[in-house]
């Protein structure tokens, strides 16, 4: 058995609100992620998915428990762990291409290298014609594709994605899913992908984590043993989907 690239051990996160209330966002969360795993996380809104990703990214700290990357505890963000945020995160005063090249700029690459790499990733998300445009000239879905290109251009070992395709139409979404799988297969990346769409999770994941809510934890770990590229018409696909939807329904009704 190889070493996991990311280990999450007994992770808990409690938020203290300004009114002195405590919110248990995550409690006793355990997960091991191996190199080249494609993990999808599904769970009801507010169950702590974004919180979990932020802790793995080193942006927030755990209240207790340990999250480590290649055996080292994660204490701050690093280039090795990239993230695509749920909300728009492009710098509005930079052109699309400069946004994609941002990580390389921080890494002090020369301008010509930066632009070359940025163009190739823009092509990949189908936006090379918008290189000189500003983010406000792009639709929400296009902005999200730029954010994905920006994260990939930095060549991280692990990519965290927080509902990256939420703003896309069904058709573009499916195209992007295929693209993402192609990148993943080509570059041997490890991906942790949060989604609301059960269909998307089954199409993409090696392993689906269904989260329980309030506080967030691992409810169920489901291995998806279907050959890729996956066929949505496959009966196993449908069975899996209804099984997961059942679990989610339990969690959602539990809240009320």
């Amino acid at each position, binding site marked *: 058995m190889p070493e996991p690239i990311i280990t999450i051990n007994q992770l808990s996160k409690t938020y203290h609100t300004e009114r002195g209330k405590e919110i248990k966002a995550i409690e006793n969360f355990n997960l091991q992620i191996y190199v080249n795993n494609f993990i999808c996380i599904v769970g009801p809104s507010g169950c702590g998915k974004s919180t979990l990703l932020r802790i793995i990214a080193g*942006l927030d700290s755990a209240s207790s428990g340990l999250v480590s990357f290649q055996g080292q505890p994660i204490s*701050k963000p690093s280039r090795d762990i990239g993230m695509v*945020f749920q909300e728009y995160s492009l*710098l509005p005063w930079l052109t699309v291409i400069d946004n994609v090249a941002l990580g390389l700029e921080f890494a002090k690459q020369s301008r010509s290298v930066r632009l070359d790499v940025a163009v190739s990733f823009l092509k990949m998300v189908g936006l090379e014609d918008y290189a000189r445009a500003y983010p406000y000239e792009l639709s929400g879905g296009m902005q999200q594709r730029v954010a994905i290109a920006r994260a990939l251009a930095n060549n991280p070992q692990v990519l965290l994605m927080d509902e990256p395709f939420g703003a896309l139409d069904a058709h573009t979404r499916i195209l992007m899913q295929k693209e993402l799988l192609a990148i993943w297969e080509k570059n041997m990346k490890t991906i942790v992908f949060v989604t609301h769409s059960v269909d998307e999770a089954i199409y993409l994941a090696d392993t689906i984590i269904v989260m329980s809510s309030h506080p967030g934890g691992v409810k169920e770990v489901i291995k998806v043993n279907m050959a890729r590229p996956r066929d949505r018409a496959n009966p196993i696909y449908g069975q899996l989907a209804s099984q997961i939807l059942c679990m989610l329904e339990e969690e959602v009704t539990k809240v009320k």
Partner: protein
Amino acid sequence: MNPWVRLMSKNVANICIMLILPLVFIIIWFYLAKSIDNTVILPSPAMVLQLLSHPSENLISMGSLTNNIFISLLRVLAGYILAVMLAIPLGILMGYYAKIFQLFNTFVGLFRPIPPLAWVPLVLAWFGISSFATLTGVERGILFIYLNNIKLSMVFIIFIGAFYPVLTSAIYGVKNVKKTLIDSARVLGASESDIFFKILIPAAKPSIVNGMRIGLGVAWMCLVSAEMLPGSLSGIGYLITHAYTIARTDVVIAGMISIGVVGALMDTLFRIFEEKKFKWQRLIR
């Protein structure tokens, strides 16, 4: 219709709308002046226009309008530049580091409600009539004339006026930077100085420049009070007060109009700059 013609006629219409109220104002002024018939109380628009149309002519043996405006501008710029140089770095640091904010906020806030004019007695006690010439040791020549006209007391009053708008806008510009922007830069491997120079400052720039524009307006407005200080023998503010003592109301009004026009001009230049540079901010969703 030809698009050029359409654009032109639209602009002409806009200009007409802008001119309605000033014209009405001048007409009322004209008739009031005529019925009062006392140039000390209200000189006619024509008299004032006569002064304004020869701005480089010597007035009441105090030099010309343009010359006095130029001296006033030098003073305002001296105080304003000092204020900007201090307020922007301080504001950025206060906006980003909570500890620095706590350290300075109460202290700086104590002085904020004090009107610049209330500083006058203290400022006179401190600086008297010493000027930039005293400070630099220049004692003759054309440079001396200009430096000697920039009294430290005036610069201080203008500094106080410009300081607060610039400081406040720098603080809030930095505080309001979307946290996701900083987070996304962090995960891309940004260092602390990258965050500062490539995220915080560009993101806060529109707010800072807006504060600079307001600060310049306030500085310009503090001018008359600053130029009423002892030791001042020139400047557009002094020209107005001096004209008042010799009952030349037409010069007073011409001076006031000059102050207004110069202030509006500076504001417009800033606005054009903001419009050009920060289009992203207006169009952001």
